[in-house]
């Protein structure tokens, strides 16, 4: 991602002939609506491809991801689906059906009864399963904290996952458990799971719990940008990403598409308030115009393209609106970002306190070389977490010949000099930031 991806570069390309890299760059640079506009006629050709079926299921969530999806596409998400020849087979918020039982028996047909519809659509293999919301495993592994149409959601997820050719988890709740899995007294009792991770734990995804192995793409965010969802689906539908072979290369260690969650850059790089940061001018009261670092901005360690893509009509961004980035795309969100309004040097990240040496370093570097140093030091204090290598542990089956360690392991080398920016998910101690 970056400035070299100016839209002009892609104008005269036939996207049907683009290689994957160019394609991903183009979608990264143009955004979903512009992309679909620009390549309207190509997309028409793509329609000759077979219809892609999407089954979208909802668990423990706020439905904000679906709300966000509805903000995508051009002129709307319905047309985007149409152009990509996607058939949305099942989606509780948008479809006409509902579950109907008479004296305990399912009645009517799949045209009116969503329970019958669901059984019909998951019977036939080869759909993309989109999962929104966390999956309840409690109490005691029964999953009974969420029972829909008489079945636990855990079972529904199992059923839907078994015949899926790809699982796309959208939003923090589905990717990592999100707010459902935040630390609490009853966290273990409730036992909400993400699809392939629960918070930063790559062993505790619901797929691992159920012993199901499927290729997974995580679209993080609370909620995710509609482009991230639509363009990922588009890339898969159009065959630009081969499932599962290309996944190890196009996803990061958290299974997020690198094109949207670039390992080598952070939101802070392109923040409109960046000039103030560089001058060391910080706001301490909200509604000002300066850098929000001292109000707790987490963008310096957040890997997402929010600052170049921008939100809702491509015009806005959290720090632009005077609010610190709360790193809502990070696997440990929200625990890893709280307290939102305190600067990291005071509190550390995810409860990790920055040691005295680091504090001294911050003080010294602020005086000596300006504010840049802060980021490095803060990042150094990243939370303890599993090695990235553990995360894609389920990849090998899907991608024979590609060592799981390969993808995440090579990130640091790819971006020399930017290591620190990739660091929040590194173990504290591996800190290249020490040179500060």
């Amino acid at each position, binding site marked *: 991602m970056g400035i070299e991806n100016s839209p002009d570069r892609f104008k005269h390309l036939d996207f049907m002939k683009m290689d994957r890299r160019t394609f991903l760059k183009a979608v990264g640079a143009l955004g979903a609506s512009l992309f679909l506009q620009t390549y309207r006629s190509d997309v028409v050709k793509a329609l000759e491809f077979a219809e892609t079926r999407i089954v979208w299921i909802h668990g423990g969530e706020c439905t904000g991801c679906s709300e966000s999806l509805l903000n995508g596409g051009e002129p709307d998400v319905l047309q985007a689906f149409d152009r990509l020849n996607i058939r949305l087979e099942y989606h509780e918020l948008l479809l*006409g059906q509902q579950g109907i039982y008479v004296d305990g028996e399912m009645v009517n047909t799949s045209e009116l009864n969503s329970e019958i519809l669901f059984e019909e659509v998951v019977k036939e293999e080869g759909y993309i399963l989109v999962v929104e919301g966390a999956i309840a495993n409690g*109490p005691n592994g029964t999953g009974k904290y969420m029972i829909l149409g008489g079945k636990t959601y855990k079972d529904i997820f199992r059923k839907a996952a078994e015949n899926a050719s790809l699982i796309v988890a959208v939003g923090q709740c589905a990717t990592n458990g999100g707010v459902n899995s935040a630390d609490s007294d009853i966290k273990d009792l409730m036992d909400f799971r993400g699809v392939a991770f629960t918070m930063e734990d790559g062993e505790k995804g619901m797929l691992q719990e159920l012993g199901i192995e499927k290729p997974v793409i995580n679209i993080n965010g609370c909620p995710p940008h509609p482009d991230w969802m639509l363009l990922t689906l588009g890339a898969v539908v159009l065959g630009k990403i081969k499932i599962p072979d290309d996944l190890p290369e196009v996803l990061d260690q958290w299974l997020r598409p690198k094109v949207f969650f670039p390992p080598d850059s952070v939101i802070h790089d392109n923040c409109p308030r960046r000039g103030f940061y560089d001058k060391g001018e910080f706001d301490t009261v909200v509604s000002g115009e300066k850098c929000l670092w001292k109000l707790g901005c987490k963008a310096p360690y957040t890997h997402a393209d929010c600052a170049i893509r921008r939100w809702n009509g491509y015009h806005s961004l*959290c720090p632009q609106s005077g609010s610190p980035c709360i790193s809502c795309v990070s696997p440990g969100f929200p625990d890893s970002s709280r307290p939102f309004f305190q600067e990291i040097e005071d509190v550390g990240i995810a409860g990790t306190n920055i040691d005295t040496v680091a504090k001294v370093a911050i003080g010294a570097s602020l005086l000596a070389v300006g504010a840049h140093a802060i980021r490095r030091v803060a990042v150094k204090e990243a939370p303890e977490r599993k090695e990235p290598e553990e995360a894609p542990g389920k990849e090998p089956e899907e991608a024979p010949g590609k060592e799981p360690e390969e993808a995440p392991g090579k990130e640091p080398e790819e971006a020399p000099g930017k290591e620190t920016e990739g660091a929040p998910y590194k173990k504290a101690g591996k800190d290249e930031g020490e040179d500060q």
Partner: protein
Amino acid sequence: MVEVTVDQLTRIEGHYRIDTQVNEEGVITEAQSMGLMLRGFERFLQHQDPRDAALLTQRICGVCPTSHSLAAAGALDQLFGVEDAVPKDALVVRNIHQGLNTIASNTTHIYVLWGTDLANPAYRDLFGNFGDTGKAVWDELLRRYAPISYRLNGVDIPVGVSYAAAIREKRRLHEAISLMGAKMPHSVLAHVGGVTYGPTLADIGQLASYYWQVMDFVENFALGVSPETWIENTRFASSPQKAVNFVVDRLQELTAASLVSNDFSHAAGWGDVPLLAAFGSELIGEEVLGLPASMKLDRTGGYSNPDTIGYLSYGVFYKPEDGDGYDPTSPPGSRVISSGYMDGNLKLHKFDHRKISESIAHSFYVDSEADRFPWEGVTEPEPEPDEIDYSRGTESRYSWIKAPNYDGMPCELGPLSRMLIMEDPLITGLAQLFRENGYPAINTYIRMLARAQEILVVASELLKWVTVDLDPSGKFAVPTDLSMAKDSEGMGLWEAPRGALGHWVATGPDSRVTLYQAVVPSTWNLAPRNTAGIPGPVEQALLGNRISAAENALGVDYTNPIGIFHTARSFDPCLACAIHTIDLTGKEEERVRVI
């Protein structure tokens, strides 16, 4: 007796089930409203910086995150002791923020979540009996409201034009929200002491431009007349009677022309609101306008016993003319849409927040007390899997939703309650009209028209906030410091699109949260029985009413209980909010939660 279950009721937020017993005439004799999921994230804010609440609590609901963040900001204002000082322009920005969300949420509900039921094949069968006119009406319903991936008799139906237009409009409104709030859902902006962003002159221009684009939709799709004309003759009508007459006269004109032409299109002046206003009601459609058939939504969704139901509003939108600061208890008249409690006979009373309590007598929680006031609330989910059983009847526990009450009374919340309490002439007039003619004053029809009317009411205020009240050179926040929240408490009373929303917060000597609680609108609307055994509002709105389309004009169809769909969905259920979900509590005395 036949047992008819809707599980899940889709096209709502979250997971929800309704169990009914229905007799041979199709009358519902028993109804149970069931929230199907627990979503606790306990201890969320305990020992935490209270300021996080404005951003975190909006994760309760992706449909009305704005309302949660603003209710939280209200609670924090008081917690930090700055509610007197929040600058007027910050209050105006909060109003704009909420106003846009209310319009977006009401629009999404009317068209995408509720309106889709108008394309139910029951109406093909019903209107099909009435010749060319009936067929033209059905074709129009399908052309407008068919959802995505809709099939009838194996034939793919194109997505409805109104359904698609509403999705585009919602998206536009979210863009407008994010001009100041960065992104939507889950915007930033709400903050203790004000807002995080001071809009520029350019933002104001853009907001106005979005506003007029949305008004184009309102005129061309929703109303068929200009929003100004509508508002002038309804909200600002000199009497409820005049407001009703304006609408009925307009419908009469349309009907006279269309019964001849059989053209019920938008182009012929039939906006979505007039179409629903005419064909939704037996009284207005059939008796007044002389239409051959109607959906009889005015005969469904009413309450058979006025003594077991009330209507509640906490009040919403600060009054810019009152300058800086506001009264957190929301006394009558202090907000643009006023607080108030209306009893089942539609008599208005003063609102007193101390009358709120909640019952867990029929919910899957473990507690020694059945009823508690919000400040003392406890949420201990049932840990025993076998105890989570939805089939044990009304005497037992059957939902994850609690049952909040006002002075012991279950209450309906939402646009209808707000429009009644603010005495909007059109909605007040309609309620009178129905009552005088032997119909339930409150019914599914008026509930939906109130939601549409509120869009117009809020829109007319919104324009004033944006173009007159907002001063880009004003102040948008007062400085606060965490130490100001020492040993304190705060209450934020607000109205989400679905109804009254309250957040309560308390802190200890270290300014960290000791209690956080939200009492949420859908909890009220979708409540199970309370401790006294009184059914919740949705349950009452189903009991004694019929399950089939148009009052069983086609005979009783247990397999397509569209009366249940219409009524339950007319409350705009939001389970993520409703489920006492979010117990943000901590251990022992430290409690933070949302019901």
